[in-house]
């Protein structure tokens, strides 16, 4: 590339055109979801396919609510409960353990930390079948305990909080707390936790999205009687795959909360992901 073409590329609309095309590809399926969710069934079968939204959303979503096979509202409520509980727990346990690994001295610290890092590399599906058996034995099948308790802690969460705590909290600050006679928990509560807040927020957002979106495990241990949102969506689409407008109305409603979370907190989420990438 010669000088002239470099300058052209740097300032030219070509770069923006490439990016705008990428953005269109990223966003179009969202728009398409809205188009189908607001169309009546016979309009979907048109050739060419519809490209603009219409006014049938109410009717389509009404069919979702009337559908006993999917229990959509139960699924929505269950997903809110499970995601909230898992998020709070992952953030708290991650902060506690991350603080301990970053700032406290104890026997076996490095070995235990290494265990956590190795854990992150192990594919989760390895334990799937025995875990299913355990859930049966515990009597948790088709209850929210089955999709909550195993996920209350996360190796990634501990590691992320530890990485952040190392640089965000100075040893002097903790020493000062000790000199003042504060207990370890007081130091955690009054000094460490406020300093960890930015990382805790990102971890919380990522955990919430992951829990909200998880499918394989809830599908394995829940039934359509008591589903999470994703399980409900999937059963709806398996049973009513010809009724696209109904399935898409449900899918759109299930996607909206995450899109809102992302529009409000997108900056932090992206910042957190990019920072995490450089550090690890």
């Amino acid at each position, binding site marked *: 590339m010669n000088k002239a073409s470099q300058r052209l590329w740097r300032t030219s609309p070509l770069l923006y055109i490439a990016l705008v095309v990428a953005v269109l590809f990223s966003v179009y*399926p969202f728009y398409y979801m809205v188009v189908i969710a607001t169309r009546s069934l016979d309009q979907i079968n048109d050739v060419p396919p519809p490209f603009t939204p219409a006014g049938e959303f109410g009717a389509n979503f009404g069919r979702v609510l009337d559908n006993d096979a999917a229990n959509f509202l139960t699924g929505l409520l269950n997903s809110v409960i499970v995601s909230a509980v898992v998020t709070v727990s992952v953030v708290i346990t991650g902060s506690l353990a991350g603080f301990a690994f970053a700032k406290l001295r104890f026997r076996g610290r490095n070995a235990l930390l290494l265990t956590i890092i190795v854990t992150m590399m192990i594919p989760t599906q390895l334990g799937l079948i025995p875990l299913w058996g355990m859930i049966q034995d515990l009597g948790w099948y088709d209850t929210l305990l089955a999709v909550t308790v195993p996920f209350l802690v996360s190796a990634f969460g501990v590691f992320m909080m530890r990485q952040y705590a190392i640089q965000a909290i100075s040893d002097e600050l903790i020493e000062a707390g000790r000199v003042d006679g504060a207990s370890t928990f007081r130091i955690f509560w009054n000094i460490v936790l406020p300093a960890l807040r930015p990382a805790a927020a990102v971890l919380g957002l990522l955990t919430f999205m992951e829990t909200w979106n998880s499918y394989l495990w809830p599908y394995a241990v829940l039934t359509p009687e008591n589903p999470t949102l994703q399980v409900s969506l999937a059963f709806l689409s398996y049973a009513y795959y010809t009724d696209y407008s109904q399935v898409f109305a449900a899918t759109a409603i299930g996607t909206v909360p995450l*899109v809102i979370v992302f529009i409000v907190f997108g900056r932090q989420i992206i910042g957190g992901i*990019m920072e995490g990438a450089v550090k690890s």
Partner: protein
Amino acid sequence: MSLSATTAPPSPSAPPPTPPRRRSRAITLNRLDLKLSPYLYIAPFFVIFGIFGFYPMLRTAWMSLHDWNLIGDHSFIGFDNYTRLFGDEYFWNATINTFGIFILSTIPQLLLALFLATMLNRTFLRARTLFRMAIFMPNVVSVAAVAIVFGMLFQRDFGLINWVLSLVGIDAVDWDAQKWSSWTAIASMVNWRWTGYNTLILLAGMQAIPKDLYEAAAIDGANQWKQFWRITLPMLTPTFVFVVTLSTIGGLQLFTEPLVFGNGNIIGGDQREFQTLAMYMYELGIENLSTAGYGAAVAWAMFVMIALVSLVNFLLVRRSVK
């Protein structure tokens, strides 16, 4: 054991006079606090992970040596499940499907992410946050929702993609009826959902490269193309290893996309055209509970494959840069 003493040097200022008894009790408490607190704080993770994460993994190994019914009896059969794997047509079919979809999704995705990250890394780019957010947005949607939407896009009779193809004179494709077409449809979901994520990770890696390297290269007369090959790519190696490893762990465990694409059919298409290893494991272990032992062997085979592919990736990426 005075490990903790180093973190808390005795206060230099004389403590206020307190009755000796209460003081010694306070000191004991303080000692206990210093010694036990760290373990207390890491305990929740290790207890819950131990029960619901680590133990099931070990049990998978134990189960794989048995003829095991998840809701019935089991008997020890040694390595029979593993020898059986070698002759199992469905297992190899699932392996080929998994790797086929994996290649169709990983390679385009990484090339595209590299391209987009390079574009987003331009110094004079406007609206950068907006571009980053828009490109990352697909990652926010659940896999189930993505599979539902793409299932419709790839629908045979009135799907958007067949309509576009018809404009250029290509006949309607029955996407879920053949291997290559179903793999393409499933891989496109993975590509759509993960390209933005990988773009951000690669972009972060690019931004961590010291700027003076480029300045020095520019002074030496290296053009942008050369700078990309000689500076950006080599300096990006650790990030690339990270991204490829993540894609491998995720890609070889692919489950939801093909399952929802095939309307919940665990065998993945009428003729197992797109049944992945994770689906086959699920079919053996959880759909048919009586073959859980064999399913556990498939789980370990998957684990070994993921470990091997990650290792090969790591070595390849490292060597190609050297």
